[in-house]
């Protein structure tokens, strides 16, 4: 039997908004080992953007010296992405997940970040503690080339 392909990468960078685009491309280029569809890759880039933006704006409240860590793992066609900050944390996670909920309406946030993550990924887990920081765990099972063809 063919062995399952597995690999990982870990990335750390300071909480500056100009790193969002870099983070998105870094994760995408790592995942492109699996030759996903364009649609799958776009979904992944979008959720990484949302999570990194949340860490910058909410987690570190735009302080630029916070550290954001992203760990991406692939096992077979399963992609797991963990985005971590050591910022202010989330008091009420259920409320934060509600569509349209935002704690920063003054910044014209849409409150749709977590909803987008839930829509584009197969699993979304939020682990957070006020004063300690937030970890978002996202999982997507890519369709293998074979499954795609069968659709």
């Amino acid at each position, binding site marked *: 039997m063919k062995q399952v392909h597995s690999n990982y990468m870990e990335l750390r960078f300071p909480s500056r908004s100009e790193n969002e685009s870099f983070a998105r491309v870094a994760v995408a280029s790592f995942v*492109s080992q*699996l*030759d996903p569809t364009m*649609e799958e890759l776009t979904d992944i880039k979008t959720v990484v953007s949302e999570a990194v933006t949340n860490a910058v704006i909410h987690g570190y409240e735009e302080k630029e010296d916070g550290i954001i860590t992203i760990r991406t793992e692939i096992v077979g066609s399963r992609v797991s992405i963990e985005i971590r900050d050591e910022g202010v944390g989330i008091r009420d996670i259920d409320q934060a997940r509600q569509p349209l909920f935002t704690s920063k309406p003054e910044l014209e946030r849409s409150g749709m970040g977590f909803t987008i993550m839930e829509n584009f990924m197969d699993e979304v887990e939020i682990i957070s503690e006020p004063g300690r920081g937030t970890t978002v765990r996202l999982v997507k099972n890519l369709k293998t*080339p074979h499954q795609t063809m069968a*659709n």
Partner: protein
Amino acid sequence: IGEIQRFLRDDGMVKVSRSLKELANRIRKVKDDLTKELGRVPTVSEIAAEMGVSPEEIVFAQEANRTPASIHETVYE
């Protein structure tokens, strides 16, 4: 959300390896055009601005012209 999703998904089932290769070819053409126009080699931002994507995306797309993007490509094609 359905609408955002549909909008973002207009590339459908196209494999990344192929789609990025096309983008990489366009980058090469834009680079050549800009070089003539400016009389010097363009910067990555200038090319990115011309194509309406971020400089980071330019770097990513360019890589597609170098190697097979994945382990699958060789296996399935």
